[in-house]
């Protein structure tokens, strides 16, 4: 296993920087150079790191510093340089040039980018540097969300990749998913496909309940704790836009059109309504004088915020009760048999999610266990393969896809009937991701 004793974190005061540093200093026991724009910010990052992993024992081995004064010295003595500065080539590339000059041969350098090309970023380095350059896409907050997408590019060495993967897994306790250098990698490509297409449907069905209705249809019984549009509101509409635009511009697959940003998202972004972080976006919560909180939802037609509605959709109620009783196949049977446009939408998106996840095997990842891990550990969504089992196996799933006019991936066509399709069961109990 690779020995990593000293690490440099760039972007130490951000949520991802401090959270990742906490994990590395705690689980890895490493000395960590915490670099930010100035030392005061770096010190704040250290305190945030301590708070994130809840141990004072790491404080003494975290050294605050600034990019201007300390970068070269810190990098020169590090076994791993983990760069978590802002998500743009303009910010990352000049920093990479400095790291490249200061790094020793053999030092690993990685970025937390969730969408930029790792191959392009690696170009700042010499041959040894390119060999040791990776995307290490941690999820927020790193202590709780244990997924790490380990993104490789054509210049990597398999032995180094294996050693780094082992370190991330065995020492840092990450659920490592290996992905190729493709836009948004695995988790975000699948997750944001669903979120963005659901957003389009919200617009199409704006008269019938819009955003709130679609989140109701895609609620916990479909294998996620939070509705897709609530998730978009949580991560921020600006971040959502950056991710879907990048995928739209740089990929061409069967779901290509679904990555177009809906017009009302852009309208909200232009108005500074970015989501929960800015006090409102697709939804907003108003605190009244008596302390009571009231939730509102954006009306795509009128541009106003309406009180968040309650729905009474019989098949959803029935499916939820089945989930509550841990009868997962029973719940999926309800979804399969239900009638009405809401049920059609539910079946469409369940089919789309499974189909799209499995279709990326071969392009983005080598095995379906990687897409399953990305969604299970990174998004807390029931992985596609597990869904196939709950739906009654490949044949039943294919039937559902064909009825919803969704392409059937080869992996599913070739799957054996009567054998469990989900193979991560010992690591992740998919049942725990359904909410009743």
């Amino acid at each position, binding site marked *: 296993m690779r020995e990593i004793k000293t690490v440099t974190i760039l972007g130490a005061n951000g949520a991802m920087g401090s959270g990742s540093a906490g*994990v590395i200093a*705690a*689980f890895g*026991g490493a000395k960590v150079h915490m670099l930010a724009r100035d030392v005061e910010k770096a010190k704040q990052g250290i305190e945030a790191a*301590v708070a994130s*992993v*809840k*141990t*004072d*024992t790491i404080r003494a081995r975290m050294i605050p510093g600034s990019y201007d004064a300390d970068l070269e010295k810190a990098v020169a003595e590090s076994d791993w340089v983990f760069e978590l500065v802002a998500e743009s080539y303009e910010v990352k590339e000049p920093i990479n040039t400095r790291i490249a000059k200061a790094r020793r041969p053999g030092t690993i350098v990685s970025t937390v980018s969730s969408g930029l090309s790792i191959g392009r970023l690696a170009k700042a380095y010499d041959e040894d540097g390119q060999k040791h350059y990776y995307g290490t896409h941690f999820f927020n907050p790193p*202590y709780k969300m*244990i997924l790490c997408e380990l993104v490789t590019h054509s210049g990597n060495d398999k032995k180094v990749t294996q050693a780094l993967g082992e370190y991330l897994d065995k020492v840092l*306790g990450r659920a490592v998913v290996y992905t190729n250098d493709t836009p948004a990698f695995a988790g975000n490509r699948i997750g944001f496909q669903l979120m963005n297409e659901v957003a389009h449907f919200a617009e199409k069905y704006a008269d019938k309940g819009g955003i709130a209705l679609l989140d109701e249809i895609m609620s*916990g019984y479909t294998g996620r*704790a939070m509705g897709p549009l609530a998730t978009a509101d949580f991560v921020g509409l600006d971040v959502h836009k950056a991710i879907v635009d990048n995928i739209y511009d740089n990929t061409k697959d069967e779901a290509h059109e679904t990555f177009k940003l809906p017009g009302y998202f852009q309208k909200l972004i232009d108005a500074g309504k970015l989501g929960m972080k800015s006090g409102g976006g697709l939804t907003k919560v108003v605190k009244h004088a008596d302390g009571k909180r009231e939730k509102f939802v954006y009306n795509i037609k009128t541009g106003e915020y309406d009180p968040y509605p309650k729905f009474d959709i019989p098949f959803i109620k029935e499916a*939820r009760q089945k*989930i*509550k*009783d*841990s*009868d997962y196949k029973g719940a999926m049977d309800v979804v399969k048999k239900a009638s009405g446009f809401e049920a059609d939408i539910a079946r469409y998106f369940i089919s789309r999610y499974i189909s799209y996840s499995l279709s990326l095997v071969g392009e983005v990842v080598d095995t379906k266990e990687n897409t399953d891990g990305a969604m299970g550990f990174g998004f807390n969504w029931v992985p596609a393969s597990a869904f196939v089992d709950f739906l009654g196996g490949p044949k039943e799933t294919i039937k559902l896809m064909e009825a919803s006019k969704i392409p059937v991936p080869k992996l599913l066509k070739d799957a054996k009937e009567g054998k469990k399709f989900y193979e991560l069961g*010992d*690591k992740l*109990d998919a*049942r*725990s991701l*359904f*909410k*009743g």
Partner: protein
Amino acid sequence: MSEKVFVLGGEQTDFQRNWTKEGKTFMSMMREVLDDALEKVGISYDEIKRLNKENRVAVFVGNFDAEQYANQGHLGAFLTEVNPALYGVPGARYEAACASGSVALDAAITHIRAEDYDLAIVLGVEVMKTVSSSVGGDFLGTAAYYDKEAKGVQFPFPKLFGKLADVILERYELKEERFMDALAEISRINYANAKRNPKAQTRTWFMNKEHAMARGGDNNMAVGGRLCITDCSQVTDGAAVTILASKDYTKEYAKKTGRKVDDIPRVKGWGHRVAPITFEAKKQESVGDKYILPWTRQTVKDAYKRADLDVKNIDVFETHDCFTSSEYAAISAFGISEPGKEHIAIEEGTIDFGGKKPINPSGGLIGVGHPVGASGVRMMLDLYKQVTNTAGDYQVKGAKNGLMLNIGGSATTNFVFILGK
């Protein structure tokens, strides 16, 4: 009794899960764990129906406090909600605080020994995340003498086991630093072991010796005298099933599943003793005794005697480390060390995963989590895994005989079982 009661296997839930957050209940938990256990063991609901027609099967539910945590009693009858195949099957709930799982096992073992039934399904269950930790702490206080030891006390059990730490320190005239270091090592070992167990509550949590030693402050608060958060097991939601069988049924089962009867472990010995309920009475009674918990030691001795085995024959232990001090006291109760010299066994690595007498390779209550009524059943399941060489990444090499100690209250109800081939 070593040829009378066999263990066919079982399953546990992932103790990391929070069923309330998932919108599910103790009943959903029972359904999942029983379905999983039967699937794993290879017994169908049709088989249960068949056995039930001949009155050869019964269920035993271990649970401490569903009344308070879930507003539900009468759990023995609840398996009928899991599957109609269980209509008519004799079933009842058994309670002995944190030893509820063991008292259910004890009842099942007794009925099989008496040849009343051929198959016994033992299911331990507790849902605990339904309330805040302070409310839950008060509920747990009913496992002590509530009026005298828990009423109005925040987190009474850490305080009772903190007192045990005090008595150990004073009675054996230990150096405080060395003793606290030994307790921290117990914590380190349990967390490290839990990392190998895919069903453990703490498998993704950070813990090392340095942190366990750093007692005090916001990140490792004192909760009971000398004991801090890192010295405590933590409550969780969870359920476990073990399936026991008579020799006749085991023969049928072995034939059907292509196994040899000799490869199926049997319950070789048991012990059950009840100490005075208050900690103060325990302390007073033990003055002058080599052991601070003499009834715990006696329970172990009873089990050894019934099994005709001794500590030298035991390859793996699962103990009730509700707190580091309870595991510390168990080391001498097992006979691994002399009383007062437990710290030496710890320092020498004897109880570590790779040591001569590994304790809690599963992670124990500190690492796996402590859903009260499920813990005893989970321990038996872990012994089964160890002695059948099916514990995966936490397998102790070559384990043939295992011993479990499950206690209720402040070491009040003591249960020991020995399982082996």
